[in-house]
């Protein structure tokens, strides 16, 4: 296995008596999209900002492409690109000036092509304050990737974006991943994390409460799988009809909805029952617990697994 691109060991960050991050460990491999999730105050920003070289850790070690962010700022800036949550640009800077300005400090030719790609071509001469929130975020992303960094930090990248912009940004992220870029994605949008991230870590009160792929995380929770069934006849409408592993059942909009702890026996029994009653199955949907369900479960139970 190759060396991880990001290596975090026993990282700790405090502000006075407040412990923001309490000795966390994780690694990110090349070409991974790694989601950093957690409620406000969980330690995401402290972790991100320490990896970006904006803060010095109070304990443990951090390495990005073998570079210590706290001690090797010059090396770090060539290997990372950062899309900050805050604006990061003066109000009066024009879009083309911003591209030229940041590319010059990275020693690369201005990447005006990114403006076409991110739908900002007609805004080249607009000043930053004249852009919509979505356009500002797209410009921030263009600036973050303009010098082709191998590691990209995205902090709430789709906040305030409309659907087409969001899709375009996700496509760009996928392309970057294919090209080998490692992406750290901090987001409150669980659907985005579930869709985009290869692995996620859920931070809670400065510790990692859970880590793994979105699929692994949703599979390990106590969340119930939702089975929605609609039949032509009334074979399921009798409340006395029960099925194995079902802990709760409700009727809504012509659907019988079952919450199951073990999906296999439940579905098999439902189908067998419908057939035995000579009824006809119109629709059957199985919905696994989402990452959002799992996230809520972890954050409300304090991370006990």
């Amino acid at each position, binding site marked *: 296995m190759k060396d991880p691109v990001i290596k975090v060991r026993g990282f700790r960050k405090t502000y006075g008596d407040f412990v923001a991050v309490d000795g966390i460990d994780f690694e990110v491999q090349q070409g991974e999209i790694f989601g950093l999730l957690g409620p406000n105050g969980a330690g995401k920003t402290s972790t991100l900002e320490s990896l970006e070289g904006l*803060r010095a850790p109070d304990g443990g070690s951090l390495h990005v492409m073998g570079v210590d962010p706290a001690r090797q700022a010059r090396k770090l800036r060539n290997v990372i690109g950062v899309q900050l949550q805050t604006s990061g640009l*003066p109000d009066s800077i024009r879009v083309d000036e911003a591209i030229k300005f940041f590319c*010059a400090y990275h020693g690369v030719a201005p990447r005006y092509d990114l403006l076409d790609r991110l739908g900002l071509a007609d805004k080249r001469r607009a000043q930053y304050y004249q852009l919509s929130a979505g356009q500002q975020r797209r410009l921030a992303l263009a600036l973050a990737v303009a010098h082709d960094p191998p590691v990209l930090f995205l902090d709430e990248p789709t906040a305030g974006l409309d659907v087409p912009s969001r899709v375009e940004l996700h496509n760009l992220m996928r392309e970057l991943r294919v090209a080998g870029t490692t992406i750290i994605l901090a987001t409150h949008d669980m659907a985005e994390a579930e869709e985009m991230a290869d692995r996620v870590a859920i931070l809670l009160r400065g510790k990692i409460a859970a880590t793994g792929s979105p699929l692994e995380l949703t599979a390990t929770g106590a969340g119930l799988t939702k089975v929605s069934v609609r039949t032509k006849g009334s074979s399921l409408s009798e409340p006395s009809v029960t099925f194995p592993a079902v802990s709760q059942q409700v009727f809504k909009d012509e659907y019988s909805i079952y919450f199951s702890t073990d999906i296999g026996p439940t579905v098999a029994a439902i189908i067998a029952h419908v057939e035995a009653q000579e009824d006809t199955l119109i629709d059957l949907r199985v919905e696994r617990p989402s990452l959002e369900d799992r996230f809520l479960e972890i954050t409300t139970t304090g991370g006990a697994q």
Partner: protein
Amino acid sequence: MSAFVNHFAFEFRTGVRNKTLLMMNYLLPLGFYAMMGLVMTGINPLFLETMIPAMVVFAILVATLLGLPDPLVTAREAGIFRSYKINGVPAFSILVIPALTTMLHTVVVTVIITATAPLLFDAPPPANWPGFVLTFLLMAFACAGLGALIGVISPSSRMTVLWSQLVFLPSMLLGGMMLPYSMLPEAVGKAAQLLPATQAMNAFRGLAQGLPADFDPQASLVILLASGVLAFGLALYLFNWDRRNTTRRGHPLLALLALLPYVMGMLFA
């Protein structure tokens, strides 16, 4: 070098593009100059003797003390310096480039004033041009340093106005622009020597306008130079990328050390 030039060009354009900076760099100094030329020359004909230096000093004070600090404070508070740090913009450039572009704007205003005042108001041009240029450059350097220092230590835009006015208002009243230094009571005159405007007007009188200086004009130049060096040095030392959860290298009151040359001048010159 390309990055520095790019940054310089952007900051220079901002000085005209941004309405507040346009006001501080050009509209207020030139408007005040026109008003003083029309009104003051009629009320006090002696004002003409030092009209050009006085208006140049006013232009420098407005651009550097009222215009320069606030964008620095606003940028820090908005997280722009964080973004600059990540992308390799050095603290030196963040502080020095706006100071240089502000000085360049004051050069433009100074050229306009110096070229038009003799024609429009019959104000005497400088008798000694090298002395005039040197005094102008050192005054602009000293005040740009103070402006950058105020921008670095000020925690908010409101405090920036307070710090700036602490230098600007006494300079207007006691700095020798409206009222000659010789007319000030002795104790007030001594206190006025703590102001860059007083030192600059003294140097302009003695080294540029061919008028008697009120105290050693060469010493005034040394004081302005020393103050500028100290102010820029302190601004770089106290510079903070981000006010959130970070500690400064020194207490903001260290900034008062930039006034040390004026205190020395007041006591010994």
